[in-house]
């Protein structure tokens, strides 16, 4: 009894993984597990709000598909960002090489000019 009372104020480990939340919404969990999830939902405001919103989606079986599509879209966007980042890196490198070559050439030319000048004296 006192343990049950303690549950009311306890708010440790309210983490719920997405798969379990989905099973809960699809009514595929045992009564005991459901109660456990609901206790966590009361502690975890983010998940609690999400659960309220997800209830509004009539076809619960579609939720997983919607999430999958959103994740694919995110993956595409991040891949684009990564490619852009790599392109920038590749673009940067030729300039660096060119600058080094020009610098070396300038040093050689300066050396030759100084030598010629010294010889002519």
């Amino acid at each position: 009894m006192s343990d049950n009372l303690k549950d009311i104020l306890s708010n440790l480990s309210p983490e719920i993984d997405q798969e379990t939340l989905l099973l809960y919404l699809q009514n595929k969990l045992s009564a005991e597990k459901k109660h456990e999830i609901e206790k966590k939902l009361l502690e975890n405001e983010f998940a609690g709000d999400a659960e309220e919103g997800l209830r509004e989606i009539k076809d619960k079986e579609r939720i997983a598909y919607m999430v999958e599509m959103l994740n694919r879209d995110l993956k595409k966007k991040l891949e684009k960002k990564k490619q852009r980042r790599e392109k920038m890196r590749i673009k940067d490198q030729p300039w660096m090489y060119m600058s080094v070559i020009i610098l070396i050439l300038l040093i050689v030319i300066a050396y030759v000019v100084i030598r010629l000048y010294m010889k002519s004296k």
Partner: protein
Amino acid sequence: MNPEKYRHITDQQLLDSFYTDHNPEWLGILLPRYTLLLLGVCMKYLKNEEEAKDCVQQIFLKVITELKKYRVDYFKSWLYMVAKNHCLMRIRDRQGKIHVELTERYMSTPQEEADMAGLLRNDHVIDLMSQSLSELSPEQKQCVNLFYLQKKSYQEISEQTGFTMLQVKSYIQNGKRNLRLLIEKKLRERK
């Protein structure tokens, strides 16, 4: 990308890795952990599937941009706040209402959780709790009793009491908050 492979890596570790090398792949592991929750929060506020999906995509973009600008310590709370603000902004745009930005944290920090654990270790708390339970409104008392003491699910409570599932949740949430306030008040009076 297989999320199972990265399950052992915490959100904070993923964020730290992102801050170290700015590789967007880390966010590709972190953000899908919250897609379902984001979709749910957007649905709660926008009440429209297409708009909610669109909103989740925009939140992802916002998060990717913002994380590059500054360091975030409590990712989950921060993400929740970003999502709520984004939804409220959309509602404002839709209805022309005044936008109230949420800047407070809406979830407990580890410190607050430790404070709560401290409260539970107090010997008087259990006595005070039984006493305070009787001071709740009849609906709150009934729902808190059925949920915490008889371990019934929302659905079972709803069937037994005739309240809707949302009402049940709300009575439990408010009952729990009121209980905590009553206990804190009683503890202060005792000192």
